[in-house]
């Protein structure tokens, strides 16, 4: 995976310092032909320790920053490393070719699947072309088309979620962003092939759940899944929210993978490399692939009516309430 030059989150300062020292050591070793392997090993241990420390201190707000990290692997990165072949398909056959969501058939080992997923951009130009992963209605209508195709052709679906939120500007409203989100959920709710959903980065409200209805729903360890961005929630709670208030809002929302698991919204947390997926995208993709295959194969064995009934029952059970007696 090719990333733009490393960018560091504020709390990653320790890692940055050690990695610079490491580069120094390696340079000196190769330029001056000295053996610094002992120092390098020591530094590797320090790096590992620092990453562990950071990982242990990942507050919900820090997870938000990790989930949004510009070096975090995106859907097309995962596709490149998980699938052996991928044919990206384009267009909603109605209006446009929205690039904030990608999809198409792909080979997962010996069998084919249909992959859909939000796609943020890596470069400035690509970010704009992909609208920062915020989808217009056309993106969801493309997804619907691919989902229906997958059902007809008998391909299971892999859906990767990574969006700050659906597009909410005038044009999106005029072309029915609400209808697009609603109809995609309805379609996935009854689709007669297995669906595995993974929140890989930002699971941003309606834009996320639109492609979030599956037989299995997983989250990467530091991904987030939220009904509203913490900034938006803070704006509702406080006037001109200060940074600490935004951080507090992030905690209140229970938006981490650990929260989602506890609340019964997801089935599994997929561990990330130490410090986050942005430190080892290839390792992350390998872990993700294993999880997808492990979850998908039992679903392929289920009779389709049972599969669809189970998926329905799964989402029907979501939510918490009490039953008042007589």
């Amino acid at each position: 995976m090719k990333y733009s030059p490393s960018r560091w989150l504020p709390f990653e300062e320790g890692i940055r310092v050690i990695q610079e020292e490491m580069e120094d050591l390696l340079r000196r070793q190769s330029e001056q032909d000295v053996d610094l392997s002992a120092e390098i090993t020591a530094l590797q241990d320090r790096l590992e320790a620092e990453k562990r420390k950071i990982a242990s201190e990942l507050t919900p707000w820090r997870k938000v920053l990790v989930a949004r990290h510009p070096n975090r692997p995106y859907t097309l990165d995962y596709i490149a490393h998980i699938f052996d072949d991928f044919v990206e398909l384009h267009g909603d056959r109605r209006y446009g070719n929205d690039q904030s969501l990608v999809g198409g058939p792909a080979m997962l080992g010996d069998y084919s699947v249909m992959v859909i997923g939000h796609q943020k951009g890596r470069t400035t130009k690509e970010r704009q072309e992909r609208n920062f992963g915020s989808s217009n209605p056309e993106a969801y209508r493309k997804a619907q088309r691919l989902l229906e195709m997958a059902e007809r052709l008998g391909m299971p679906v892999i859906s990767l979620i990574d969006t700050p939120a659906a597009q909410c500007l005038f044009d999106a409203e005029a072309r029915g962003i609400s209808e697009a989100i609603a109809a995609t959920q309805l379609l996935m709710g009854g689709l007669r092939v297995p669906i595995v959903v993974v929140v890989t980065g930002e699971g941003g409200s309606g834009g996320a759940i639109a492609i979030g209805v599956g037989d299995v729903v997983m989250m990467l360890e530091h991904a987030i899944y939220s009904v509203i961005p913490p900034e938006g929630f803070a704006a509702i709670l406080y006037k001109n929210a200060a940074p600490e208030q935004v951080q507090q809002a992030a905690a209140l929302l229970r938006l981490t993978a650990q929260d989602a698991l506890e609340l019964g919204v997801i089935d599994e947390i997929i561990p990330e490399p130490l410090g986050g997926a942005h430190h080892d995208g290839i390792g992350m993709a390998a872990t993700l692939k294993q999880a997808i295959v492990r979850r998908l194969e039992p679903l392929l064995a289920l009779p389709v009516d049972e599969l669809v009934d189970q998926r329905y029952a799964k989402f029907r059970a979501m939510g918490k309430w009490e039953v008042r007696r007589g």
Partner: protein
Amino acid sequence: MATERDWRARVPDGMWVKCENPRCAQLLYSKELDRNLRVCSHCDHHFRLSARQRIAITLDPDSFVETDTELMTVNPLNMEGYEAKLKRHRARTSEMEAAVVGTGAILGHPVTIGVTNPFFTVGSMGSVVGEKLARCVERARDQRCPCILISGSGAGARMEEGILSLMQMAKTAAAIGRLRQAGQLCVTILTNPTMAGVYASWASLGDIIIAEPRAMIGFAGQRVVKGTKSDLGADAQSSEFQHEHGMIDRIVPRLEMRGFLESLIRMTYAAPLRKGASVEV
């Protein structure tokens, strides 16, 4: 009867009430306003109605039987202030939650009905609201009758229930998917306001979508839009805009709504290849 009690409770004590529309502000005789289904006779402003008022003007008299009242909201995220807020809204509205659902009839034809109450947390959808609506849709499927869902929800999802409220979108959407497969009609009626997570799930999934005039209807909450520096105009979030852009079948004034529904329900039951006979409720 609960409906009657509530209806009265929402009428101001005085004989006169000022039109809510600031550009009208006409003083209206409260009994006449009620007779007019709480539509201002001067400016046609449609006052917000509670869930029970809606049910009263929608169903055949005395046909409504409420269901799913045993579902009680909890505070799953331990969100500070949520319980107090619920308590406040319960006291103010005499309702336990923002959705009232049940069965009833139109022209004697069985229907199920689910209504969100804009007076209770602006009709936001938490776990109990989502669950009640899903059961309402499922009941229509089981009883092979049409389902009428009426939205009045300015907030969409209920923030205090976090991600659980987001899941109610998928839950209600999937339920309507099953109703469609069973060949039963789903009509959604959008009233002021219908926004965000509600509009982006069940409210947009009626076979037929009707709106009251000049209701605020849209995806992005105005506060959220402001925060993200959108250029969204206010007009884009109206019944009229959504109708013009093909999202809403008809804008029907409140005084014509019952007649309109009668036509739809009559025709639904008169479909010669209708799936399944209706079951007595």
